[in-house]
């Protein structure tokens, strides 16, 4: 698997997503809005977020803490708790708009249509019950008509898909290493073969070697069930190794969506440019380049473009007072920046 896809990607021309991708997008997020009503004011955690994903495609979502990337995942899963509220927008998986489902419908959709592997999932495994019991528990309500042994077969198959011995079924969480626990969480995520898998920082607490193992596992698993994967993180290196498209979030807005090659060779939004140039590589030892300033508080967003105080082009009146809107460029990229508002694709 890896070698075929790797070859396709080292091709210098922009490579299309895996051939298995169907033509119609499997996930369509449209104008999603989430607001938090706190004691200190209103914070818009997600502001008019829209993007699309096809089966078999891998999207990397990057941004600083507080940029809204985890909120986006929670919103799609309808797991936003008060004082947060989903104010509008749609999240369509296949033919179903997740926002229009009732409680029962959404409960059914979780894990069977869209699966979420939260950050630190491996630490949330129940320490006192066996892994197998937890896996069965997760899917019991979805598979009420299947026999016990059929469910267990499914679990064994999922465990094998993540390169774990089916014997793990009978083990306890503390008997497994960090990487193994994380793969168990991935296995739970794929039990019902969802169409979309969201993995929130799946490797943040793991060392490089285990991280590589886990990412290769997600790759393989995704290939098997042809799901679309959203990888949330802030490690651009991981994105370069793994995803097809990259979406950059800043202060609750999607500021750029591009293919991974475009993002690394020619980032358009000034924030993406700053992110790319701050990456360490073997050729510039001793050069440290960060991004000046701090991410703004969502309670007190700067007027106009939220990035303008930190942007090298942000001194114009336009940036300070007018909100930029997402613009689709000729190559299919989306950028939310005043610099490109004149280049919108026609037609």
């Amino acid at each position, binding site marked *: 698997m890896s070698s075929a896809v790797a070859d396709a990607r080292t091709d210098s021309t922009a490579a299309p997503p895996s051939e298995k991708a169907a033509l119609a997008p499997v996930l369509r997020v449209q104008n999603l809005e989430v607001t*938090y009503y*706190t*004691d*200190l*004011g209103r*914070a818009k*955690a997600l502001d008019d977020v829209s993007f699309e994903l096809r089966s078999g495609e891998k999207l990397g979502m990057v941004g*600083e*803490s*507080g940029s809204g990337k*985890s*909120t986006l*995942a*929670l919103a799609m899963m309808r797991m*936003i*708790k*008060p*004082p*947060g509220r989903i104010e509008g927008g749609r999240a369509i998986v296949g033919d179903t708009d997740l926002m229009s489902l009732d409680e029962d419908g959404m409960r059914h959709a979780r894990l069977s249509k869209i699966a979420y592997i*939260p*950050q630190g999932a491996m630490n949330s495994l129940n320490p006192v019950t066996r892994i197998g019991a937890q896996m069965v528990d997760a899917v019991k309500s979805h598979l009420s008509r299947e026999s016990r042994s059929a469910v267990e077969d499914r679990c064994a198959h999922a465990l094998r898909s993540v390169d774990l011995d089916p014997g793990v079924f009978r083990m306890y969480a503390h008997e497994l290493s960090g990487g193994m626990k994380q793969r168990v969480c991935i296995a739970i995520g794929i039990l019902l073969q969802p169409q979309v898998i969201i993995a*929130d920082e799946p490797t943040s607490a793991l060392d490089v070697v285990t991280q590589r193992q886990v990412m290769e596992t997600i790759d393989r698993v995704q290939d098997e069930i042809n799901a679309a994967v959203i990888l949330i993180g802030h490690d651009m290196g991981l994105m370069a190794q793994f995803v097809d498209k990259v979406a950059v979030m800043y202060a609750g807005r999607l500021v750029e969506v591009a293919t991974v090659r475009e993002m690394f060779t020619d980032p358009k939004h000034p924030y993406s440019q700053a992110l790319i140039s701050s990456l360490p590589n073997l050729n510039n030892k001793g050069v440290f380049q960060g991004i000046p*300033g*701090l*991410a*703004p*508080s*969502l*309670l*007190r967003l*700067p007027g106009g473009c939220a990035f303008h*105080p930190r942007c090298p082009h942000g001194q114009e009146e336009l940036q300070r007072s007018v909100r930029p809107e997402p613009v689709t460029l000729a190559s299919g990229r989306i950028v939310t920046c005043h610099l490109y508002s004149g280049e919108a694709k026609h037609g």
Partner: protein
Amino acid sequence: MATIALASGVEERVQQPSQVTLFFRYLRRNKSLAIGLAVLLALVLFTVIGLLVVSPKAAYPLAAMTKQPPSWKYPFGTDFFGRNLLAAMAVGLWQTAVIGVLAGALGTLIGIILGFISAYFGGWLDNLIRGICQVLTPIPVLLIQVVVASTLDKRDVTIFTMALIVVMLAWMWPTLVIRSQVLTMKERQFVSVAKLSGVSDFGIIFKEILPNLLPFIAAAFVGQVFSAVFASFYLAVLGLGPLREPLLGNIIWSAQGQGAFFNGWWWWPIEPAIAMILILGSLALIIMGLDELANPRVRRSE
């Protein structure tokens, strides 16, 4: 997982509402704590006003006409011995409070001292203290209290000795609770950093760990007060309390002794019973409320 970056940077400081406002907003969410505190406050007011309005002497026998049902002159009625029950309730509540707070404070203090020493210094000291606690815990408290109370000379039984009897077997629980909290806190990284900053062992105990345990200590205290009040109540109901005093339990005991219900003097045992339910109920609600405060995971979202 959704975090809101409250980083200030270019903007001015976000205005914080005052402490008082935040406290009342919290009370609105934590209903147990709110109701518990409200009821307790009402009882305190009753006691304070009662003691000011009615002469304490009226709580003792032959102060008024006997066996009077509630009326304007005697709002709570009087009993067989001629005690004005309004005065009796006020004085009784006051004495219950004294026992509760005294025993509660003593028990909690012992718990803090032993719990800290045990957890922080470890070793044989820890094993010793923990061993004693574990040996004493399964002892049937009621039995021992009854035996001790009944062997005392009747003249020695005062509210203070009652408090001591109650504390005697109640200090183990706060010790163990505080010990386990300190054990966890000890491993926290801010303790390591304090060590690196040159803070001494005692400095760490008092300045770093203790302030973080205040909610637990408060909860332990209220728990101790609860046990003390309850224990003094049932000991008195059994006739083992300081009989001359109008402790709530005593009133019920004497009412029972005179067959109050059969004789139609319903107000006599009912009033102290209601008072006791209110006290214990409010304390229980406060404990539940404090539990939620101390344990942020239990804290209900706004």
